[in-house]
């Protein structure tokens, strides 16, 4: 059979007019004879791979852990404490009644030196921005083109009011977060940069420069914050930030930046307006001041995960090494 095949190969080659290498390649493909690399899981190879992964991952883990630990973060939950004593049993009534004053004052102590820029986030817990009904309820067309776009059916149930369309429509915009913060260190108010907190791409290409809020929060049921109807959507950065919906029920959104260093033992007084209702569903509101590292904010998870995976690879490598030594000795004894 071998002879036969060789002769056919020779015979079928010359008549083809294609370049030789090409017809040979095609022939090798049709005969399933393409040169192939056949790796084998040899003990050396596998053990070395695991050792290598281990030795790479543990340092990376340590480095990212270090980066995460170098981030200074102040987290202050204020949603409960900012409700006056007499409303503790009826928080919902307090938050819903606009006649009650909503201002509140918090004191934050800086434990470690914080290098500018310091990011101010508000964190919401147990808030499902990723709920299907919520995520879908927006019209990107309308955000970009304004009233001209009539594709507002996506915005249900918040697409129109009193027969007039709403700009920006939808639940996401309607539920805009509207707590505000002022930071005072010592006597002077800290300068909070509220510009450029949204993605530039969103400001330029997702939210229209000539689209102005219209008929927004005019309904009987008022959701979240109101918008200044003389500012175009592309400049409503709080809205743009808010409309980048979060994937997790616990998320932080950028409020602004403090562009000066905070020193250890600085005391910062935060004057905030506690407007946003998280009481009805047991959500939490937190104010976060955080510096940042090359990996982003404070997050120990990648560091620990890297160290875990790395050490687990090393353990596997050692186990396999022992097994290999034991086994090869057995074979040695057994067969000689």
């Amino acid at each position, binding site marked *: *059979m071998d002879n*036969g*095949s060789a*002769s*056919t190969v020779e015979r079928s080659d010359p008549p083809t007019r294609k370049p030789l290498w090409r017809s040979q390649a095609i022939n090798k*493909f049709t*005969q*399933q004879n393409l*040169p*192939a*690399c*056949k790796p*084998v*899981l040899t003990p050396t190879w*596998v053990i070395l791979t*695991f050792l290598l*992964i281990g030795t790479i991952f543990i340092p990376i883990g340590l480095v990212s852990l270090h980066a995460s630990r170098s981030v200074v973060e102040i987290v202050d939950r204020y949603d409960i404490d900012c409700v006056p004593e007499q409303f503790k049993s009826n928080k919902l009534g307090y938050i819903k009644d606009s006649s009650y004053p909503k201002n509140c004052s918090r004191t934050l102590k800086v434990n470690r030196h914080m290098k500018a820029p310091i990011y101010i986030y508000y*964190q919401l817990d147990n*808030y*499902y*921005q*990723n*709920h*299907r*009904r*919520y*995520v879908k309820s927006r019209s*990107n067309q309308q955000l970009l083109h304004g009233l001209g776009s009539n594709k507002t059916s996506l915005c249900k149930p*918040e697409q129109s009011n009193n027969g007039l369309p709403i700009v920006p429509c939808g*639940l996401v915009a*309607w539920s805009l977060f509207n707590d505000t913060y002022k930071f005072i260190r010592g006597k002077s108010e800290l300068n909070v940069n509220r510009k450029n907190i949204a*993605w530039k*791409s969103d400001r330029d*290409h997702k939210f229209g420069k000539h689209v102005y809020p219209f008929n927004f929060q005019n309904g009987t049921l008022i*959701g979240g914050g109101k918008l200044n109807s003389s500012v175009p959507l592309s400049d409503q950065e709080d809205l743009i930030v808010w409309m*980048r*919906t*979060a*994937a*997790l*029920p*616990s*998320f*932080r959104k950028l409020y602004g930046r403090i562009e000066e260093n905070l020193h250890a033992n600085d005391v910062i007084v935060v004057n905030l307006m506690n407007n946003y*209702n998280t009481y*009805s*569903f*047991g959500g939490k509101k937190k104010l976060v001041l*955080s510096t940042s590292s*090359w990996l*982003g*904010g404070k*997050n120990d*998870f*990648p560091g620990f995960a*890297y160290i875990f*995976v790395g050490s687990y*690879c090393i353990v*596997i490598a050692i186990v*396999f090494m022992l097994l290999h030594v034991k086994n090869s000795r057995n074979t040695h004894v057994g067969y000689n």
Partner: protein
Amino acid sequence: MCRGIPEPKLTAMDAMIDKLTGAIFVFQIVVVIVLGIAGNVWKDTEARKQWYVKYPEESPWFELLIIPLRFELLCSIMIPISIKVSLDLVKSLYAKFIDWDNEMIDQETGTPSHATNTAISEDLGQVEYILTDKTGTLTENKMIFRRCCINGVFYGNDSGDALKDVELHNAVSSRSPDVIHFLTVMAICNTVIPMKTKTGDIFYKAQSQDEDALVHAAARLHMVFVNKNANILEIKFNGSTIQYEVLETLEFTSDRKRMSVVVKDCQNGKILLLTKGADEAILPIACPGQQTRAFFEAVEQYSQLGLRTLCLAWRQLKEDEYEEWSLLFKEANSTLVDREWRIAEVCQRLEHDLEILGVTAIEDRLQDGVPETIEALRKAGINFWMLTGDKKNTAIQIALSCNFISPEPKGQLLLIDGKTEDEVRQSLERVLLTMRITTSEPKDVAFVVDGWALEIALKYYRKAFTELAILSRTAICCRVTPSQKAQLVELLKSCDYRTLAIGDGGNDVRMIQQADIGVGISGREGLQAARAADYSIGKFRFLKRLILVHGRYSYNRTAFLSQYSFYKSLLICFIQIFFSFISGVSGTSLFNSLSLMAYNVFYTSIPVLVSVLDKDLSEETVMQHPQILFYCQAGRLLNPSTFAGWFGRSLFHAIVVFVISIHAYAYEKSEMEEVSMVALSGCIWLQAFVVTLETNSFTILQCIAIWGNLASFYFINWIFSAIPSSGMYTIMFRLCRQPSYWTTVFLIVAAGMGPILALKYFRYTYRPSKINILQQAERLGGPILSLGSIEPQPRPILEKEVSPLSITQPKNRNPVYEPLLSDSPNTRRSFGSGAPFDFFQTQSRLSSSYSRNKDN
């Protein structure tokens, strides 16, 4: 022959895939119901409080269905639709590989193999029973006159070819009357029509290959059948022309087993009856005075050698005897009722008191490589049944000569016969009893049954016969009709065996269509079988390559491809399900629809399509160790438990991807599009590594497909990230700039692949399957050989196995029967040397082999 309408065939593998799909569907429904209920509960307890979701207070009843329906949509990707498309694509490629295979081109005629049915290649790897025709399938169906015995004198015994026997030529030239009569019968007792070409050469048109052989042989011995003009036959003998007038032709039927002609010698007006036929049909009607012992011996000797024998006889008829009989014959010919029977009866009145002239022996040579092919396939655990229309002795001889059955004392033949129900029952019971006992012995037991007994057995004792069929690895069924062939296939199929029927003639068509796989040999009997078959090949020996190489690879590749398709769909689906737990069980999709579509259609299907080039073992290794086919036959690579492994793997990977991406991208980074792309990248990276890990041999195409696919994932997403109107505008650029994206992806890969690599390595090294052992042996040249120096290297084994059998190959002009008697010790030796790889004995499906091994 009525071909009927063949049913579309479904491979065992497709059936298994359908079953698994069904299981996944049930799982999907359960998930949908559970999540649907959970979603509605969550909606009523939690979401109503969440003012920002703004659920209406009152809602129509069908609102309850919305959440389950959303989950149904989310989970619909659980069953990969792409699997059907991918499978169809790779199946047609398997078929193309068969068509293209240079090693399966018949060198004599230049006919390539062809896969007519492109959908059942995997079944080739799972064949358990091969039912084969004899004439034209195992043999070449090229009849050659080899020996003869004329009046007690044997010709051709020394040289093996009577035509070269000097003594015979001498006898012809000396015009010995016996020899002349013998040659005359050879030349004219037939229905052959001689034709003249323009150049004056004569060629013969014969319906029967045997008659053709006889006429040709007679011509070589100077008795040339020149012309047939109406009823006048012309024969040239040594220059003189003799004319005969054909008075009657008493045709051959399979009941009579003989045919005769009544001719009138035009020179002297004598009327002669010339007869030829099977020994049992001629010798009993010899004239009482003649000694027939010599002829019996001749027949015995020839059929021992696997030759087809015919007895030639003649008788001079008296004029009035003929006249009288002729009237009866005419009357019989014109009857309307039972005509055949009447004719046979009338013929019998004339065919008696014959003078036996001699015995001819015709060889129907085995095709090249038939014994090796059968031996290799039997080693691969495939059971062979021979279904033939021929008579018992010839069938047995052929079976012996092609390793179908082993000669005594290694093999044992059990005979089922009988003319009545009772006899058949008794014989069947006896055989069954012997079979049950002998299964504990290391013996090759085969049973032989003829058409009549088979008819009775199938009709009345189907159960017993089925048991017999299961117990016996080998069977010879002779004198069977086409419909019986099909019935036998049906019987084996009803026992849930995968059957392959191979044949070459019109009488095999029904069997070929009935079997799971039909293979036709495009041979002398035309293309009828090849057309009806799923595969057509030029020679029987290509069957080995068809099954061991193409069938096995197809099975392995499809096993990987189908399970992988489920794995990748389940992976993405599990992530969606997990995500629903952190999105208020509302059925939000983490991935955008574009990514989902591209994931199924593009990112995950291209690398796996190239797995059609994967080879776990090289062709040579498989050919040397056909036992490895066991893994395919038993469905070891695709069954619920391997599927559970893939299911578990997708669950594990989904957990890894989900947990890592939501924790690494928490808090301020938890932007929906970003998290979704991180998770998707994790899936794509993981699947690239999974395909890499599961690939056994990397050709350049596979490398391109796997890593090029990963590169194209980024490329495609960058394109979408550059389109301002797309939902993922700038996302991918943003991510690729973040170190945390890359650390997350590598973390996912290491955490996901580490345990899988460890497990695979552990199994491969410490709990190796036989495939792994062979892989190691093949690639490292190592462990098997180092286990003991006694065993020769695999390569010499093959040569040793081939050498004793290669005597039957054409370079060696020896006729088939020469090795037959001498090869049994060789065969045993080769079995012995193949023993170290005989590891499948213990795992054989038949309980018999368990005990067989214990005895060893």
